[in-house]
């Protein structure tokens, strides 16, 4: 148990180092000279040289990497070119908004998606099942930003029920959360349904039924528990996808979170902001995956027995392939 947690924690070190390195490389892939790009074509050579020195562009990459790590450890992500404010401070201020948006959206997706999937699976091949699945397919296939715009148009402009943008009261959160989570509700519902249908065919379900257990008990006690494992294992990954969604919903609904900050930094080519927020969001994401892993290691002895994330993650690939193995032979 402790060994699992220790190994899993140790895995965070290369991951955080890796993220930092990628974040540093982002500046490297800028076509041409980033300094020139920032100051425009009319910049004097002196100013260019000064900025290059400030960004540390002249140093070898390894030196820059070490410097960058040193700064991060001290919570120093530089100052934004545009606002001249320290990036770290700004990020800390904005973080709660993003966490609330992503956290509640995740809760809504799981809380609605799983019951919906169970409902569809228990009504397999009826119009209820087909209808629910067909509608959810639309939600899966729809661009989130487009749906968000339609929500604003309908509930904000047409009906005037909810505020258009900005965060003033709890009502302001409704539209962004609906927009962010609806696609994921559909995804989880579809996943739950197909897992349930798979599990229902298993022998132990037949046994449970043969014992004379009531249908309800068979479904919730035996089937659902087993069907949920693959879904719960990917909750951490869902968090990452939701962060991606939050980037856009924050912009559309004017939520002053990290996503909005990131997009603003990207459109303004504000490198400290880009580096800082990509780093922050990625570390947040890795931490959530870490927490999910540890929590489920405590709950599920099967995960605990495999020490370290490596085997655990590769195992996940294996599960996916197991389903596909027979396909290969077909």
């Amino acid at each position, binding site marked *: 148990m402790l060994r699992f947690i220790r190994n899993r924690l140790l895995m965070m070190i290369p*991951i955080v180092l890796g993220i930092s390195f990628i974040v540093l490389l982002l500046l490297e*892939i800028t076509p041409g000279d980033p300094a020139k790009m920032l100051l425009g074509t009319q910049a004097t050579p002196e100013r260019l040289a000064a900025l290059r020195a400030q960004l540390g562009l002249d140093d070898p990459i390894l030196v820059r990497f070490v410097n960058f790590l040193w700064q991060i450890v001290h919570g120093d992500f530089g100052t934004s070119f545009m606002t001249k404010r320290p990036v770290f401070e700004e990020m800390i201020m904005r973080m709660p908004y993003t966490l609330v948006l992503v956290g509640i959206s995740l809760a809504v997706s799981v809380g609605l998606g799983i019951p919906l999937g169970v409902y569809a699976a228990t009504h397999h091949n009826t119009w209820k099942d087909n209808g629910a699945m067909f509608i959810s397919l639309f939600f899966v296939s729809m661009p989130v930003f487009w749906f968000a715009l339609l929500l604003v148009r309908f509930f904000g402009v047409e009906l005037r029920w909810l505020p258009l943008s900005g965060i003033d009261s709890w009502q302001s959160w409704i539209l962004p959360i609906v927009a962010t989570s609806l696609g994921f509700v559909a995804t989880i519902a579809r996943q739950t349904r197909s897992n349930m249908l798979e599990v229902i065919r298993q022998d132990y379900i037949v046994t449970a039924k043969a014992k004379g257990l009531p249908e309800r008990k068979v479904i919730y006690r035996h089937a659902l528990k087993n069907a949920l494992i693959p879904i719960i294992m990917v909750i951490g990954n869902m968090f990452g996808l939701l962060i991606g969604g939050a980037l856009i919903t924050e912009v559309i609904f004017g939520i002053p979170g990290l996503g909005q900050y990131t997009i603003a930094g990207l459109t303004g080519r504000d490198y400290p902001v880009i580096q800082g927020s990509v780093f922050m969001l990625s570390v947040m994401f890795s931490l959530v995956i870490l927490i999910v892993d540890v929590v489920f290691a405590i709950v599920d002895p099967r995960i605990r027995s495999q020490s370290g994330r490596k085997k655990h993650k590769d195992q996940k690939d294996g599960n996916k392939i197991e389903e596909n193995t027979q396909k290969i032979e077909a």
Partner: protein
Amino acid sequence: MVTKLKKTRKKSKLKDLWRRLKKNRLAVAGLIVLILLIFIAIAAPLLAPYSYSAQDSKASYSTGTAEHPLGTDKLGRDLMSRLIWGARASLEMGAIAVAIAAAVGITIGAIAGFFGGWTENICMRVLDIYQSIPMLLLCITIAAILGPSLQNAIIALGVCSVPGYARLMRASVLTVREKEYIESARAVNAGNARIILQHIVPNAMAPLIVEITMGVGSMILAGSLLSFVGLGVQPPTPEWGTMIAEGRNVMREHATLALYPGICVMLSVLACNLLGDGLRDALDPRLKN
């Protein structure tokens, strides 16, 4: 003789797949929609009643007239023509990005799975780190840093979705690696390259077919998002995501300008998903008979 045998077997496999796929009406519908979209994209100059940039100053924001069935935008450009032209960029993004991602991912996955040991270890750990950055975030960031253009958007989309294909391919190769026919290929002194290309990859591809089909859909979706934030196709070239962004400003008065391009995106992604679902079932031997 041998090649002849091989050919007939391949043919019957495809035939078998098609026979099972066509029982699934939704999958066939998806396939038809996709073929239609490809046709529309290729034949855009012939199908579109107007050029995508032709302005009609007398018909700014017209709605559903005989000349402009779906209306026009602020500059009087025909919405339907722009939607038809827009199919090009969207499909291009979807198809090329997936091709890049799948090609790179399959190569990495095949090498990692086949050689195992430290090669595999390094590949997988690098992918772990790669995947610890939320995909869409990485994608938008790369696209923004490379500079806004269709080409860069495609590169960004492709680069970001490599890990998924690589992981799936590796896992699939692991199941194929131990098969007898690999052993027999080795027995006749086939080189590693030959074994991978001739025996491993073709046999490990099946699970990736579904992934690739659905991948086209998710790339179209992500591509429209990139265009929406101004990182994809640049105006005046029409693309559905860009059109939604343009329509956004006049959402209040002229909602259809953003509505229709969104429906186009949704339909094409839906088609990919339906076809992918159908293929998954058709490839699943447990559902045979």
